[in-house]
């Protein structure tokens, strides 16, 4: 069992919600989806590779018969799955510091959510509702979201340069080369192992 593979951490969390509050949450997600500026902060934080929320209505768990007992639940549940770079503490510190309003918008409908500020209480709540990953796979364990974004920029720039390399004079190529290097110069970090989390 490990929550970590290379540079990425798999967090799973489940929180109970009174069913009437679920509708408000769905509205909040609708807004988040359609009002792009609200997603900007999430994008700028740049250490999440993929993240999702899944609303599980209390009658929504798969029921396949065949001897399975049907669930009888009072609460709806909100499942959260995140794939992020960095340590658990760093991740939550960052969210609490800059995305508190967004976090509150999603989790205030969950029972006993203490708010994302102050951060220590918030971390205690997360620790309570987090459950561990049994098996975690990533196709690129040695790369973070930043590494991947940089890699795509380098690939794009390389392809552009390759396209003209054959037809240029050496001097033209030298100019194109400088342009290329300037485009990729902040995107050349090495990939590799992650630092050890305490």
């Amino acid at each position, binding site marked *: 069992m490990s929550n970590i593979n290379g540079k990425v951490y798999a967090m799973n969390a489940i929180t109970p919600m009174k069913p009437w509050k679920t509708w408000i949450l769905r509205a909040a997600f609708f807004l988040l989806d359609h009002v792009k500026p609200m997603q900007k902060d999430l994008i*700028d934080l740049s250490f999440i590779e993929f993240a999702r929320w899944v609303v599980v209505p209390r009658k929504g768990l798969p029921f396949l018969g065949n001897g399975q007992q049907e669930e009888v639940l009072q609460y709806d549940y909100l499942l959260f799955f995140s794939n992020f770079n960095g340590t658990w503490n760093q991740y939550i510190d960052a969210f609490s510091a800059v995305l508190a309003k967004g976090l509150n918008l999603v989790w205030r409908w969950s029972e006993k959510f203490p708010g994302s500020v102050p951060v220590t209480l918030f971390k205690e709540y997360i620790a309570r509702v987090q459950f561990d990953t049994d098996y975690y796979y990533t196709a690129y364990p040695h790369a973070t979201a930043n590494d991947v974004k940089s890699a795509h920029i380098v690939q794009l720039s390389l392809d552009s340069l390759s396209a003209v390399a054959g037809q240029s004079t050496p001097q033209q190529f030298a100019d194109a080369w400088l342009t290329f290097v300037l485009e990729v110069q902040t995107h050349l970090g090495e990939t590799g192992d992650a630092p050890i989390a305490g």
Partner: protein
Amino acid sequence: MSKLNETDIQGFVLRGYNLPFARYLFLHFEDASRARSLIARLLSHVTTGQRWDGGKPQSTVNIAFTHRGLQHLELPEATLLSFPVEFQQGMKHRAPILGDSGVNAPEHWDKVWREDRVHAWLGINGLTAEALDARCSALHAAMEETGGAAILASQDAAAVVRDGKPTTSEHFGYTDGFGNPDYLGVQRSSQPGQGKLLPDGTWAPLATGELLLGYADEAGELPVAPIPHLLGSNGTFMVYRKLHQNVATFRAYLDQQAALYPGGKEKLAAKFIGRWRDGTPLELSPDREDPAIVKDQIRNTAFTYGADPEGSRCPIGAHIRRVHPRDAFGFNGQLINRRRITRRGLPYGRFAPEDEPASDSEERGVIFMVLNASLPRQFEFVQQQWVQYGNDSRLGNDKDMLMGQHGGHGSFVVQGDRSPTNPPFVCTNLPDFVELRGGDYFFLPSITALGMIAKGLVDPR
């Protein structure tokens, strides 16, 4: 914000003394009650944070303890267990987290740091070598008379002297001494660039609790502190690291790379750190040193990186940009306000001027001390995520050029622009310019707490 009682806080925490001579003694306690008597005697020596409006003292004394030191002083079990886990474990145990492996691993440390016997640090600073010796004699006498401690090791350090005057230079030739944060209630006046960035672009002091236990920190909470409150308040945690500098390697590497770099040697040296060797920030003066800026307290650290997103003035991976990103991570700098540290320290070893040969094996380097309220959130985070790693700056696994542990690998990219004297440039096959020779985590108590420890009156309630 509560007013600070400067007479209760050790002076070393509140300000750099700018006294050019230092000696650090590492003590071992054999017997708890004799050790407590010694601390009671030392109390009259300990320098507080009271301001020196009447002029600098001839010498200062400060004291700090490792967790095992506090155990040997027989503090109550419940108190000992209430200290932050990182302090309890100590720096040696946390070597993997700090990236202190390979040549920096504990098995290569000085003997005193390889063994787990250091209980206390006594920091003595002096205006002159004579003043330093005189104070040390007095302290030795106290130790003799009480039988309270044995001295395991002694480390001298001193400001580099050039042209007969003490400077803030270090062994690679860089001028040090900029960039310590401002904290609420600590400084008389705020220096632009030193605190936290506000949305309107001005700078404000950081919350006191980023430095001192018992005060609100930047997250609006009290930092983790031992119980009882009185033991922790007005205290802080200190990291001590003896960093050996490979001056010969540095000079050879700089010469070798500078031969290929069109901007010239001094500019390349500046690109490693983010300041020219005289201290001029690249961000303010990318083409030349500027003594006027260096001397001006209002200007010498007042800059942001917003106008330099490509790193063509100050490289993205330059040291000062790594450890104090300012506005470089967006969000009005909010992601870095809890990652600031206060640095103290002095060079040790004989200074070799540029025109004299220097060997890597000669004992020289810097005694690097960090003061912060939270070891994991501040020092350890910066060391692990910003010095030994680069993802937050979008530099992948790249490490700090001078401070990182490279082992002959890795690269440092000097971002540039189209100007012929500022091209993009890559330095590869990075050697280890700096090597860790040991250190530990210490707790620097308030004067009140020292008194409680000395009298054996720590009650964990």
